[in-house]
C-alpha cells in the first residue's frame, strides 16, 4: 500500500510534464491544474488513500506528498508565467501605437487680459503695502468733481466728458472718487489703490466710453515728492522691466500740486526713435498722471494740510495692457472674441 502510493506520487510529476507538453493556452493550464491539484484531482486521491496507512507509514508518505505538491505547484506556476509571458510578448509585438498621433486635447482658459494686467498692478502695489479699495461707479458731482478741486465751470471738466443718469447722478470719470471716500472716513496713514471701471462719453479709435483705472494714494505725515518718485519707479520697473527708464514731466491736475505725467522709455522700440508707431519716435510713452495731493482736497475731506501731505497717481489699465501685451486696438478688450481672449 505504502509503496503503491509512493509510486503514484512519483509518477505525478512525469504525468504533469506530459500534460503540460500538450497544453496550448492558459485555460488548458487551468484544466491541468484542476486535474492534478483540484479537490478530486490526482494528488487529492493519493492523499485520501493515506487514511488507510498505518501511523508510522503516514508521515513518510505525507512528507513525500508535500514535496510532490510543492513541485507540482511551482511547475504549474512557472508554466503559467511562461504562458503569460508569451501572451504579453505577443501583445507587445502586435502593439502598433503611434506616438505621433494627436494627444487628447485639454483646454485651458484664462482671465480676461485686462483683468490679468489689473491683477498684476494690484499685486505689485500690495507688495508695497497698498491696500486695495473699491468705491461706487454711480457717483455724485461732489465726489467726482468738487471734492477733487474741480468746481463747476472749471475748464478741466472739458477733459472729462461725463455720462449723467436721469436721476441726476453720474458715472464716475475716474477712480479718484475712491480716495475722497476713503479720506472722508479714515485717518492717515492711508495707503491704498483703487482699481475700477470708469466712464467718459467719448468713443473713437483711442477712446472707449468705458475703461479702467487704478488710482493710488499715500497720505501721512512727511510724505513728499521724493516718495512719489520712489514708489512709481519701483512699480514701473517691476511692471515693464528693470531696463525701463522713466521721466516725470510737469503737468496739471486740479486735485494734485505739483502735478506730473510719468513717461516710460518706449517698450517697443526701446527708445531707438526710428519709425516706431507706438511712441511716434519720441522714445517715450505717457503712462500715468500723478502729483502731491492738493491742499484744497485735504480741506474738503477734513484733513489738515499743515499736518498731512501725500501723493496720488492714476493710470489707465487699458493703456498698460496694450503696452504690455502689444494689443493695437482698444476695442478688442470689449468685443469678447474668443480668438482674442484665448491668446492670453
Amino acid at each position: 500500500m505504502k509503496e503503491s502510493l509512493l509510486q503514484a506520487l512519483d509518477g505525478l510529476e512525469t504525468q504533469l510534464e506530459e500534460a503540460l507538453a500538450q497544453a496550448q493556452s492558459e485555460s488548458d493550464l487551468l484544466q491541468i491544474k484542476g486535474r492534478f491539484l483540484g479537490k478530486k484531482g490526482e494528488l487529492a486521491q493519493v492523499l485520501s488513500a493515506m487514511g488507510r496507512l498505518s501511523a508510522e507509514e503516514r508521515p513518510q508518505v505525507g512528507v513525500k506528498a508535500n514535496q510532490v505538491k510543492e513541485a507540482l505547484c511551482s511547475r504549474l506556476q512557472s508554466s503559467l508565467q511562461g504562458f503569460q509571458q508569451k501572451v504579453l510578448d505577443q501583445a507587445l509585438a502586435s502593439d502598433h501605437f503611434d506616438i505621433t498621433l494627436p494627444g487628447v486635447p485639454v483646454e485651458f482658459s484664462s482671465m480676461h487680459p485686462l483683468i490679468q494686467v489689473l491683477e498684476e498692478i494690484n499685486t505689485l502695489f500690495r507688495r508695497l503695502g497698498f491696500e486695495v479699495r473699491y468705491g461706487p461707479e454711480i457717483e455724485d458731482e461732489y465726489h467726482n468733481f468738487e471734492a477733487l478741486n474741480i468746481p463747476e465751470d472749471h475748464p478741466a471738466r472739458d477733459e472729462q466728458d461725463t455720462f449723467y443718469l436721469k436721476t441726476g447722478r453720474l458715472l464716475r470719470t475716474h477712480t479718484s472718487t475712491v480716495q475722497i471716500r476713503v479720506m472722508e472716513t479714515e485717518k492717515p496713514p492711508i495707503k491704498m489703490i483703487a482699481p475700477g471701471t470708469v466712464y467718459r462719453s467719448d468713443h473713437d479709435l483711442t477712446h472707449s466710453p468705458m475703461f479702467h483705472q487704478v488710482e493710488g494714494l499715500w497720505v501721512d505725515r512727511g510724505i513728499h515728492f521724493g516718495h512719489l518718485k520712489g514708489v512709481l519707479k519701483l512699480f514701473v520697473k517691476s511692471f515693464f522691466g528693470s531696463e525701463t527708464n522713466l521721466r516725470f514731466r510737469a503737468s496739471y491736475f486740479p486735485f494734485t500740486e505739483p502735478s506730473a505725467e510719468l513717461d516710460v522709455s518706449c517698450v517697443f522700440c526701446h527708445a531707438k526713435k526710428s519709425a516706431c508707431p507706438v511712441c511716434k519716435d519720441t522714445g517715450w510713452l505717457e503712462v500715468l498722471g500723478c502729483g502731491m495731493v492738493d491742499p484744497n482736497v485735504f480741506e474738503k475731506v477734513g484733513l489738515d494740510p499743515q499736518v498731512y501731505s501725500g501723493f496720488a497717481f492714476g493710470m489707465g489699465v487699458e493703456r498698460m495692457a496694450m503696452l504690455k501685451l502689444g494689443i493695437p486696438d482698444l476695442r478688442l478688450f470689449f468685443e469678447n472674441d474668443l480668438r482674442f481672449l484665448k491668446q492670453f
Partner: protein
Amino acid sequence: MLISLNWLKQFVDFDLPSDDLAERLSLAGLEVEASKTLGQGLDQVFTATVLEKKSHPDADRLSLCQVRCGQETLSIVCGAKNVEAGARVALARVGAKLPNGLKIKESKIRGELSQGMLASLSELGLEEKSEGIWILPPSIEEGKAIIEVLALQDEILEVNVTPNRGDCLSIQGLAREVAAILSKPFSAPVFPSYPPNSSASLEIDNQAPEICDRYFCRVLKGVKVGPSPLEVQLKLKACGLRPINNVVDTTNELMLETGQPLHAFDLDQLEGSKVLIRFAQTGEKLKTLDGIERQLKSQDLVIADQTKALALAGIMGGEESSVTESTVNLLLESAHFAPIPIRRSAKRLALQTDSSYRFERQVDPAATCWVLEELSRRLIERASVQEVGPVVAYGEAPQTNLLSLKESEIERYLGLKISPKSLEPKLKALGLEFSLSSTGEWQFKIPSFRSDLTRPIDLIEEIARLYGYDKIEEAFIQLSSQDLNLKLSNLEKLQSYLREQFKAQAYDECLHYSFCSKKLLEAYGLTADASAFLSNPLSENWEVMRPALFPQLLGSVVQNSRRGQERLRLYELRSVYGPTTEENLHLSLALSGPRSLSHFREKPQMTDLLDLKGFLEEILLGWLGGLLSYGELRLSFLHPKRQSSLIWRAHSGAPAQTLGFLGQLHPQWLLEKNIENPVSVAEIDLAFLLGSCKSKRVFKPLSDYPQVRRDLNLVLDQKVSQSEVAQVLVKKGGSLLQSWYLKDLYRGSPLQEGQKALTYHLTYGSDQRSLTDEEVNQARESLLEALKSACGARLRD
C-alpha cells in the same frame, strides 16, 4: 496752441534746436504734442511772373502760361482758375520736391509742354487747404528763391497748454517760459500809448461790472480795409488762423502775440452814442460772424448799441457790425471778462472760439489797456487811418498780489532743501519778484497775468518744475507696523476664488460695457423701466445701465458662434445696476457645445444644463457650504421645462436664500439665433456670497479602515424627482453612509410606462473600525424601507 519759433524769437533770444526746445518745454509742463518744419522742400521754388495766359487747345480746364523767372521764360500748364497774366506767382521748378512729396518733372500734359508748376499755398505746406494757386503781392521781387524773399523757414510747435496756464496761450507767455527754462532774461515789450488826433468817441455803459471789470474802446476813422501785409498773413496761417483783412488780422495777430482777445466793430453799423455791456434779453437774437442766428438767454452777456446786440461778449462778434471791405470807421474793443459766465454761454451755445477759450482760462487784466494802444498803432501803420479818437476806459488797473512762502514748506512737499534764491534768474524771467521778509519768509510779488498763483503750494510747484522734477531725489520709506494692512478683503478673495474655478473648467472671461440697449433688456423680459437710464447716452445701444449680465453674455455666445466657435464657455464677473444707486456684483456664465475638444477617438458629447448645474453647484457650495435646492421659474426665453431658480440654505430647515437662476435657452431662441447646440445660462447675485464665506476649513483625520460599496437599484414613479430620493438618502442614510452618487437613470422596457429606475452607488465606512457585512446590509435595508414609504420606491429585480 500752435507757436512759430520765428515769432517766439522776437521776444526771447535762443538758438536751441527745436527738438530740444520741445523736450524742455514738455518737461516744464508745456507739453509739445507735435512739431513741423516750414519751408522744407522749397529750395526749387521761385517767385515768377505770368506773362501770358492762353487756353489749352485740348482741355477746357487747363491753361497754357508763359512764366518769366528772372532771365528765363518757361511754358507751364496750369489748372487753377485764378491764374492771370501779370500775376506774381510761386513757381516750382523742375527738380523740386515739395513738402507734400510731389516731384516736379518736365512733362507733356495733353500734348503741351510743362516745365514746372505754379504752386498753391497748401502745396508749399504753408496752409492746410488752398483754393487756386498762390498769388503774391506785386511788391515781391521776381526771380528769387521764395524761401529767402519771404523768410519762410520756420518751426511750428503744437503746445498743449493746461487749463491753469491761460497766460501761456500767447507767444509772449511762452517766450517767458522759454526764458525761464533757459535761464535767460525776459522783458515784456513796452507798448507806448498812441495820442489821439480827434475827439471821436463813444460812451461806455457797463451794466455788468461783476463780469466785465475792464472795458477799453477807441474810435478810428477813415480806415482803408484791405489785405494784410504778406508776412502777417503767413504768420497767421502758420499759427492756424485764416487771414481775412488788415483790421481783423491785426486783432488776431495781437491776440496770438499777447493773449488778449480783441474786437473791431464797423462803427457805422452802431446806433447812438453809447456802447453797452449788458445781459441779453430772453429771446433776443444775434447773427454771429459764422452766419448762425443765435437765440440768447438772459445770462448771456452782449456788447450792444442803443437798439441791438452787436457781439456776444468775449465769444464772437456779430455779422452785421463786422469789418468788411467797405468799412471806413472802426470801434476797437479790448476788454476783460470773468471766466465762468463766458464759459457758460460758450458751452450752452456750443461756440468755443479763440477768444472764449482764453477768457475761460483767465486773461491778464492789466493787458486790456496797452494792447489796445498797440492795436491802434499797428492799424495806423497798415490801414492808413485818418482820425484817431481817445481811449475810453472803464475799470481800474489790477492790484499786485503778495504771497509768502516758507522754505520749510518747500522741503515738506518736495523733500528738497532749496532756496528760491538759487532759482532767481528763472523766477525773474517768469515775472516773479521776491525778497526775504523780516519774519524769514520769502515775499513774492505775483504778476497780474499769473492768476493761477494764489497759494504757497502754487509757488512750490513753480520751484519744482523750474528746478526740474528729474533732479528731485527718489526717497523710500521702510514699512512700519501701522501701515501694514495686508489682509485681503472678502471681495478680493471671492473674485480670485471664482476666477480660479473658471480657469480650472476652461471658461473664458468676458467684459461687456456696463450699459446696453433697452431693446436688449426687453428681449429677455427685463423691465427696463426699473433701470438707470443715461441722460446723455452716446447711442441707443448704450442707453441703460444693465440690471443683469446674461443678456450681453448671450450676445457674445451668439457672436462667437457666428464666428464658427462651437465650444463656448463664457463668464462675466461684474457689477449690475439698480434704478438709483444700487450696484451689485453679479456672476453670469454660459455654456454650449461639446464637452471636450474634438479628438479622433472620442465621440463628441454636447453639454447641457446639467453640465452647467454641476459646475455651478460645486463653486457655490465650495464657497458657501450648506445646501442648494431648485425652485419654480417661468422665464419665457428659457426652455419651459429646463429652468429653475437657485435656492441656498445653510442647513435643511434654515431660511432660504435665492441666489439666482439657471436654465437652458428656449429651442425657439436657438432657432432665431441659428445655433444648433443647446445653450445653458445662469446668473448669480454675489452680494450674498460676499457676506457669507464658509467657515474656516479644518483638517479631518484620514480613515485607516476600508470602505464598503453597495449599489441600490430603485424603481420609482416618473413624477418622483431625484431630489426627493436624495433627501431621504441624506436624512435616512444612517451615520455609516459616507457618500453616494447617482450611477444610472433608466426608463423603458421592462419597466412600466410612467416608471423609472435610479441606481445609486453607496459608500459606507467608519473612522473607528472596519464594518461588517451585516451592519452595512442593515443600514441599506433601513434606507430602503425609508425610500419605500417616502417615495414609493421598490427594489428593482
